């Protein structure tokens, strides 16, 4: 169930250039699943006005805590980055349909492909897949080394490859360069990142089961305003889906790329 809660800041850390890790405490953590997101009101004033959608990167139900990882770039996320321990943050969530963790059988292998600020939700997904006895392979793409994060965290969960556009860390180029050269064996792929990356992946694995997480500008964040609508491919019954309430995760082939 979606709730609105003033959640308490447990910690705020800068983990890479302009990249922040914010841990919040509150009841709505109990309802979270990987791939879902929260809609954050970053300030009590009218500026900035709209909420910001941010993915759930880590869930700790025992302690009622969750973590988000975000890039402080625009007006809203810069305000969010000023929060300190003990402050309250207005959070609406959890929202949307996340990654289906049970799509891979125990003993199977999942390929997780992330790009930039699409990497965070894959962390909780990987944790939950590992907890079910699924092997995970991570291929994570970034612009440069200074915006890479969570190397230890992902490496602890499985084989992890970094890719940077400028080659400052790992393989130079795009995630597809790694996939082409290593050809990993897997059962299901999951991905979150920029559209060209999602599109490339769909083309790369036409015969595999896969789940993709999308981004679109939002108004309400709950399915009421039709701001975040995406066209679907003509194979499905509906001609559009809403990223906020039908997604953000869709089975491969659902959204027209």
């Amino acid at each position, binding site marked *: 169930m979606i709730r609105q809660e003033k959640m308490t800041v447990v910690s705020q850390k800068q983990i890479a250039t302009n990249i922040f890790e914010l841990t919040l405490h509150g009841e709505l953590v109990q309802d979270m699943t990987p791939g879902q997101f929260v809609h954050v009101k970053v300030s009590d004033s009218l500026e900035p006005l709209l909420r910001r959608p941010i993915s759930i990167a880590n869930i700790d139900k025992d302690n009622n805590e969750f973590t988000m990882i975000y890039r402080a770039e625009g007006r809203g996320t810069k305000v969010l980055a000023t929060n300190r321990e003990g402050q309250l943050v207005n959070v609406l969530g959890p929202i949307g349909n996340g990654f289906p963790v049970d799509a891979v059988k125990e003993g199977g292998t999942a390929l997780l492909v992330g790009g930039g600020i699409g990497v965070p939700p894959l962390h909780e997904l990987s944790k939950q897949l590992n907890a079910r006895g699924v092997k995970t392979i991570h291929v994570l793409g970034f612009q440069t080394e200074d915006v890479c994060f969570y190397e230890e965290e992902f490496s602890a969960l499985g084989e992890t490859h970094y890719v940077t556009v400028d080659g400052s860390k790992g393989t130079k180029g795009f995630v597809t360069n790694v996939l082409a050269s290593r050809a990993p064996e897997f059962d299901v792929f999951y991905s979150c990142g920029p559209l060209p990356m999602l599109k490339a992946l769909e083309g790369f694995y036409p015969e595999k089961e896969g789940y993709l997480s999308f981004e679109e500008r939002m108004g*309400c964040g709950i399915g009421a305003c039709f701001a975040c609508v995406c066209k679907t491919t003509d194979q499905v019954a509906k001609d559009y889906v809403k990223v906020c309430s039908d997604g953000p995760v869709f089975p491969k082939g659902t959204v027209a790329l």
Partner: protein
Amino acid sequence: MSRLTIQLPGLELKNPIMPASGCFGFGREYAQLYDLSKLGAIMIKATTVETRPGNPTPRVAETAAGMLNAIGLQNPGIDKVMNEELKFLEDYDVPIIANVAGTETADYVEVAQRISTAANVKALELNISCPNVKCGGIQFGTDPATARELVEAVKAVSEVPVYVKLSPNVTSIVDIAQAVEAGGADGITMINTLIGMRLDERTGKPVIANGTGGLSGPAVKPVAIRMVYEVYKAVNIPIIGMGGVTEAQDVIDFMSAGASAVAVGTANFVDHFVCPTIIDELPAKLDKLGVEHISEIIGRSHR
């Protein structure tokens, strides 16, 4: 609660607060958050004869204390609205105001005739003011004579009172208001969004795929208050005011300017519980003003 009741043509409102059209869908999503029966009324999303796919994305952009939108009246068409959405809303004790849109007079007449027969639709809101689609009725909303003819045609078929939603994108909103009153409108709702544009910092091109969008939110409130104030002086039919309402004080302001009830739009995206919160806060506001019943403040700025 009886301090907040308002009687308007077709509408017995428990309180003067209602979500504005397009900002509340058909209520389903907000019904997961709170009991819709708490609301004075619900203005549902624009309904057209056929299914409408809407505009390309991005459809929204943030602006200073406001937002631009160009949704493009996306809706499932009158059959689905009647059979599914209005049926769903029957579970709640709340009157529905159906927002009617179209390209030609015949579209408005068809939607109005059919939707006004739904059990819970207590009034229509003619959308002659959507700035985001060529066929959003804006051509009806900017010319007094055309506006009047449309109202007459819809009044002839509607089973419930007809309110007309005015556009602020005109030289004289008073002329349009008087024209729709002459055409037989039972009330006026105002304002729809102001046409605006935001450019991308890097490319210099419009952020919204449509180019322009409709501006709403706190930024537009002074414009809306001024327009309600002017129209109140010029017509004898009631006004439902809107534009930037985010808290109880805004409701007091709109009613002081002459509105009999108030709709809340964009604020529903920012605080999804804003409507019930405002309703709860109004009695304390009335105490502060030394007013027993909320209707006493309607139009007080003119006295």
